[in-house]
C-alpha cells in the first residue's frame, strides 16, 4: 500500500466513481459496440465453426487410425487425410476471417470513442480547460481508450468461447456422474466469492493506476510545455526528485498493488481446481473401490475437471483485463458525460448577419472556481460600427468582458445581446463566425504561416492573406522568413518572436472579415513604430464594424467612439476621450501617468 497522496484533483473523480457505477459503465461502453453487433455476431458464428473444426481434429485422428491404418487400407487413409486437410483449411480460412473481423471491430470502436471524446472536448466550455490539464486530456483520450483495445479485440470472444466450453463440459460431467459433479461444484461458491472479492479489490486498484497514469502524464506534459522556465530556474533536480519520488513512484506502487491482486487471483482459482480434483480422486476413488462407479468413469471425470477449470482459468485472466478496461471505461464516460456549461439550446437559432449593436444588460459574472465577482453589474450599450476601448488595471475584468461577448462563458446574471438577440438563444458557431478575435496570448498552430492566417477564413485567397498581413505590417518579416508564407512555424510559433506571433494572429483576425472585431492587447509586444503603422491602417479596417479594443498604450485608443473604464469589475466611467479627460476622473489619472515619467 502506498503512502503517497496524489493531489486532490487526481483522487476526486475516484471517489465519485466508487458508488457502484458498474452497470452504467457497461451500458455506456455497449453503446459503442452496438453499431458492430452484426459483425460481432458473425464473428461468433465463425468461432463456433472454428471450434467445431478444432474439436473434430481428434476424431479424424481416430478415424485414420481405426479405418485407415488398423484396417490396412491406404486408400481410406489417403481419403481421411485429405478430408482432414480440407477441414483444416476451412478452419484456417474462418479463423483468419474471425481475427480480422474482431480486431477491426476493436479498432473501429477505439476510433469511434476517440472521435466522440474529441468532439465532446470541442463543446466543453473554457472553464473545463482551466481545471483540466493537457496531460490529463491526453491520458483519457489515448491511454484510457487504449485499455479497451485488448478487451474488445481478444477478450470478448474468448469469454464467449470459454463460457461455451464451460457449459459443454458441465453437461458432460453431469451426464457422466451426478454425485461427482456436485462434489466438483462444491468449490464453485468459494470461487464466486473469491471472484467478487477480487473484482472489488482489482477495480479499486485499477482506478488508482489510471489516476496515477493521469497524474504522471499531466506532470510530464506540464514539464515539457514549461521546460524553458524549468531550465531558467534550474529546477531540473528538484523536479526530478518530485517525479521519481512521488508521481512516478505512485504509479509504480499502484501498479504493483494491482499486479499483486491480479497475480493472486489465477493461482487461487487453480488451487480451487486442485482441491476439486483431490476431492474427486478421494471420493470417487472410494466409490470405485466400493464398486459404485467404474475406474473409467473416474478417469474421464478427472480429465473433465481439468477441462472445466481450463476455461475458468482463462476467464480469470480476462476478468483481470476486464477490470482494467472498466476502470478506463469509467474515465472515458466521465469525460463524455461532463456537462457542457455553455451549450447551444435545443431551439437555438442561427445568428443573423450582425449589424453590430452590443448590449451588456446588468451583467455580473464570476468564474466557476472562485465566487468573487469578476464583473459586477456591467451596463453597456454600443451602437453598430462603434469602436469601444476598454481600459483599466490588469485584472480589472476587461478580458472577461470580451470573453462574455464571444460567449466563452455565460454571465452569472444579466444578459449579453447583439442586435437585440440574447446570445444564449443563438448557436455559438453562427455567432463566432462573425467575430474576429486577437487574444491576449497569441497562439499559432503547427503549420505554415499561411495556414495560420487562413485559420481565420479557410477559403480566403492568397492575395487576401497577403493583404491582411500587410495591414498589420507583418508582410515584410514574413517575406524574410525562410520560405515566406510557406515557412512552417513550430508548435505555438516558438521559432518566431512574440511580437511576430502577435502580428500573425492579428492578420488572422482581420482575414476573418468579422462583423465584430475584438483586440485584446493585440499589439502589446509589438514595437511602437509597427504599432503606429497598424494604427493608421486600422482606422480604415474598423470602419463599419463594431470593435472592442483593449490596450495599455493609451495612444492607441484616443480615437475610440467610447472609452469604458473598468475597475474591480465595474464600469466606473464611460464616454469620449475629451469628455473623460474633462471629467478629470480615473481615465484622466490613467492617461496622465501613461505619458508622464
Amino acid at each position, binding site marked *: 500500500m502506498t503512502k503517497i497522496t496524489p493531489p486532490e484533483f487526481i483522487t476526486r473523480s475516484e471517489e465519485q466513481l466508487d458508488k457502484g457505477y458498474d452497470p452504467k459503465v457497461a451500458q455506456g461502453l455497449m453503446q459503442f459496440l452496438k453499431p458492430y453487433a452484426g459483425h460481432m455476431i458473425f464473428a461468433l458464428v465463425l468461432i463456433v465453426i472454428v471450434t467445431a473444426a478444432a474439436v473434430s481434429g481428434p476424431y479424424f485422428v481416430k478415424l485414420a*487410425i481405426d479405418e485407415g491404418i488398423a484396417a*490396412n487400407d491406404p486408400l481410406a487413409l489417403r481419403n481421411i*487425410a485429405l478430408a482432414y*486437410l480440407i477441414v483444416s483449411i476451412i478452419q*484456417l480460412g474462418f*479463423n*483468419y476471417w474471425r481475427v480480422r473481423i474482431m480486431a477491426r471491430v476493436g*479498432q*473501429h470502436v477505439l*476510433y469511434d470513442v476517440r*472521435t466522440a471524446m*474529441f468532439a465532446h472536448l*470541442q463543446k466543453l466550455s473554457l472553464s473545463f*480547460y*482551466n*481545471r483540466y490539464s*493537457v496531460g490529463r486530456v*491526453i491520458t483519457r483520450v*489515448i491511454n484510457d481508450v487504449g485499455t479497451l483495445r485488448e478487451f474488445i479485440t481478444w477478450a470478448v470472444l474468448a469469454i464467449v468461447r470459454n463460457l461455451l466450453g464451460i457449459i459443454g463440459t458441465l453437461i458432460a460431467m453431469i451426464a457422466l456422474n451426478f454425485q461427482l459433479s456436485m462434489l466438483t461444484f462444491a468449490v464453485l461458491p468459494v470461487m464466486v466469492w473469491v471472484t467478487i472479492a477480487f473484482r472489488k479489490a482489482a477495480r479499486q486498484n485499477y482506478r488508482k493506476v489510471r489516476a496515477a497514469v493521469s497524474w*504522471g*502524464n499531466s506532470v*510530464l506534459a506540464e514539464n515539457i*510545455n514549461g*521546460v524553458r*522556465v524549468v531550465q531558467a*530556474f*534550474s529546477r531540473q533536480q528538484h523536479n526530478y526528485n518530485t*517525479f521519481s519520488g512521488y508521481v*512516478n*513512484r505512485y504509479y509504480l506502487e499502484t501498479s*504493483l498493488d494491482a*499486479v499483486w491482486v491480479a497475480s*493472486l487471483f489465477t*493461482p487461487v482459482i*487453480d488451487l480451487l481446481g486442485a482441491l476439486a480434483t483431490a476431492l474427486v*480422486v478421494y471420493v470417487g476413488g472410494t466409490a470405485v*473401490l466400493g464398486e459404485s462407479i467404474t*475406474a473409467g468413469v473416474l478417469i474421464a471425470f478427472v480429465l473433465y475437471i481439468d477441462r472445466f477449470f481450463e476455461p475458468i482459468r482463462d476467464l480469470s485472466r480476462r476478468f483481470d483485463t476486464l477490470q482494467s478496461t472498466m476502470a478506463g471505461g469509467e474515465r472515458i464516460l466521465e469525460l463524455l458525460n461532463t456537462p457542457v456549461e455553455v451549450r447551444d439550446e435545443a431551439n437555438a437559432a442561427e445568428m443573423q448577419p450582425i449589424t453590430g449593436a452590443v448590449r451588456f444588460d446588468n451583467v455580473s459574472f464570476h468564474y466557476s472556481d472562485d465566487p468573487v465577482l469578476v464583473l459586477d453589474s456591467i451596463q453597456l450599450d454600443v451602437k453598430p460600427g462603434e469602436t469601444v476601448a476598454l481600459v483599466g*488595471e*490588469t*485584472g480589472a475584468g476587461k*478580458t472577461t468582458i470580451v470573453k462574455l461577448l464571444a460567449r466563452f462563458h455565460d454571465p452569472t446574471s444579466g444578459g449579453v445581446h447583439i442586435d437585440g438577440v440574447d446570445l444564449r438563444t443563438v448557436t455559438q458557431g453562427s455567432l*463566432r463566425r462573425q467575430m474576429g*478575435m486577437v*487574444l491576449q496570448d497569441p497562439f499559432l*498552430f*503547427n503549420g505554415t504561416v499561411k495556414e495560420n492566417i487562413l*485559420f481565420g477564413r479557410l477559403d480566403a485567397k492568397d492575395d487576401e492573406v497577403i493583404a491582411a498581413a500587410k495591414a498589420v505590417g507583418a508582410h515584410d*518579416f514574413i517575406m524574410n522568413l*525562410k520560405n515566406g508564407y510557406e515557412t512552417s512555424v513550430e508548435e505555438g510559433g516558438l521559432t518566431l518572436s512574440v511580437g511576430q506571433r502577435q502580428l500573425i494572429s492579428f492578420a488572422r483576425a482581420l482575414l476573418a472579415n468579422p462583423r465584430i472585431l475584438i483586440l485584446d492587447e493585440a499589439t502589446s509586444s509589438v514595437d*511602437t*513604430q509597427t504599432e503606429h503603422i497598424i494604427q493608421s491602417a486600422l482606422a480604415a479596417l474598423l470602419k463599419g464594424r463594431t470593435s472592442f479594443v483593449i490596450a*495599455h*498604450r493609451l495612444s492607441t485608443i*484616443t480615437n475610440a467612439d467610447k472609452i469604458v473604464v473598468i475597475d474591480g469589475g465595474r464600469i466606473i466611467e464611460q464616454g469620449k476621450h475629451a469628455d473623460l479627460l474633462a471629467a*478629470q476622473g480615473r481615465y484622466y489619472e490613467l*492617461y496622465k501617468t*501613461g*505619458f508622464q*515619467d
Partner: protein
Amino acid sequence: MKNLIRSAAFLRPYAWQAFASLLMLLALTGLNLVVPRIIQAVVDDGLLRGDTAYLVRSALLLFGLGLVSALLGLGNRYASEWIAAHVSYDLRNRMYDHIQYLPFTYHDHAQSGQLISRCIEDVRAIEKFAGSSIPELARFALLTFGILGVMLSANLELAVISLLPMIPLILMTGWFGTKIGKLFFAVDQAVGEVSNRLQENVTGVQVVRAFAREEYETKRFESANMDVFRKWLHVIDEWAKIMPTTNWLITIGTILILYFGGQMVIAGELTVGAVAAFNAYLLMMAEPAQALTGLVNAGGEAAAGAQRVFEVLDAEPDIKSKKEARVLSALKGEVEFRHVSLKYQNENNHSLTDINVKVGQNKIVALIGPTGSGKTSLVNLIPRFYDVSDGAVLVDGRDVRDVELTSLRRQIGIVLQTSLLFSDTIRANIAYGRPDAAEEEIIAAAKAAQAHEFIEGFTKGYDTIVGERGVTLSGGQRQRVAIARALLTDPRILILDDSLSSVDTQTEKLIQAALDKLMEGRTTFVIAHRLSTVRRADLILVMDKGHIVESGTHDELLKAGGLYKEIHDLQLMQREEALTDIQPITGNKPTHENTLYAPRSNAG
C-alpha cells in the same frame, strides 16, 4: 532488434529477479507435467490395489502439488510484473529527466504531443515485453528442444516428415518479426500524432473557439485518428495471417504423420502406438509455437517503442556543462558579448550578427528595436539558453560555455517574454526558483512586483491554484507573478524581457519604482518598447535586424539622430498630443521636456 537489445540493458538491475522468475516458471512447467502422471498412478495403482490409505495420500498429494504450483504461479507472475513495473519506472524517470535537460533548440522543434506519447505509450510497450520476455523465451527454447529431442530420437524419418511444416512456420515467424516492428512503429507515430493534435487543440482552445473552428479541428483530429486506425489494420492483417496459420501448420504436421506414418504402419515398419505418440508430441509443439508468435509480436511492439524512446534519449543535450566546467561563485555581474553571431538551427539567416557590447557591474542596459530585431535572442544567450554560432558571451570574463550551467543560471533571474506559470498554488509558483523560501520572502517579492494586492484579493490568497500555464490569471497578473518569481531568486543578473507589456501604466509605474530599488546592485537587462522605461538605462542598445545599430545613453542617442530618435519622436508626438489634451483641462502650460524626462539620478 538493435533497440530491443539496448533496452535489455534496463533489465540488468533486476537480473536476479528475472532469474528467480525463470526458475519458478520452469518448476511450474515441470509440475504441470507431473500432475497427469500422478492421476495415472492413482488409477493404475490405487484403484487396482484397492488401497484407501493410498487414495488419501494421492488426494493430499494432488492438493499439495496444486498448492505448490499455485504459489509458483503467483511468484512467477508477480516477479515478472514486478520487473516490468520497475523497468518502466526507471525508463520513465530517465525520459523525464533527459527531456528536462534537452536544450531550447530541441524543444523549439519537438512536438510535445509526440514527446508525451513516447514517455507513456512507448515505455509501456517496453514494459509489457520486459517482464515476461526472458522467462518466456527460455521456456520456449526448453520446450522446443525437449520435444524435438524426443521426436528425433523416437523415429528420425517420421520426425523429419512431421517437422517439415515447421520450416515455413519459422520462416513466416521470422518474416512476421521483421515486418511487425515497422508496422508497430507506424502505429506509434500515428498515435503520437493524435496526441499532438490533442495537445495543440487543448492549448489553443481559445483560438479554436474564437474562430468557431471546432468542425475543422474535429476533421483534422479524425484524419489523425483514422491514420491510427489504418496503421492498426496493417498490424491486424499480419496477425490474421500468422496466428491461424501457426495452428494450421501444426495440423498439417498431424496430417503428415497420419498419412506417412500410417503408410509405414501398413508397410509394417511402425506400430500404431508410435504414430499416436508422435502425434501427441507434435500437438505439444502447438503451445510453444503460439507462444513464439506472441513473443515476436510483443517484441516487435517493444522494439518500435524502444526506437522511439531511444530517439529521445539519444538526443544529446548539447548545451551542458563541460566536464572541467568551473562552478561559478558569487558573480560580480559583468557581461560581455564578443563578436557574437547567432543562427538558429534550420534557419538561413542570422538572428544576431557581430554583437559587441561590454556591460559593467551593476549597470542597467535597455534594449529597444522593432519586433523580431533580435532582442530576446540576445538576452537568451546570457543564461546560455542557446549557444552562439560565432564569438563568445562572457560573464565576469568567463565564457558561459566554460562554466557550470546551474551555477550560472542560479545567479540569473529572467522573466521570459511569455510568462508561463504552472498549475500549482501562486505561492509555489513564486517560490519556483527557491522552493525553500520563507513566507515573508515570498510576500516581499510579490509586493515588489505589485502582485501582493491582487493575490490577497483572491478567496484563497496565495493558495489559489492557477490553471495550467497560468490561464486563470489575467495577462498582467501572470506577468507580475513571473516577475516576483524572478525577484525571489535574488539574482546577480536580472533580465526583464518585455515583462510589463500587459501591465497597465499605473501599475507599471509602481513596479518601475520598486524595480529601481531592486536593480541597484545588480546588472539588469530590460527589453521594453516604452521609452519611459528605456531612457533611464545606463546603456541603451538599439537593435535592428540582428545588429546593434546604435548604443549609448538617452541623450547621446537623441543627438545621434538615428532609429532611436525616430522612435523617440513618434512617442514624443503621441505624448505631446496627449499633453495638449490634458493641458487645457489642467490649465498648466505644457511642461518642459527636461522636467518630464528627468534624468534617472534625480528620479531615483
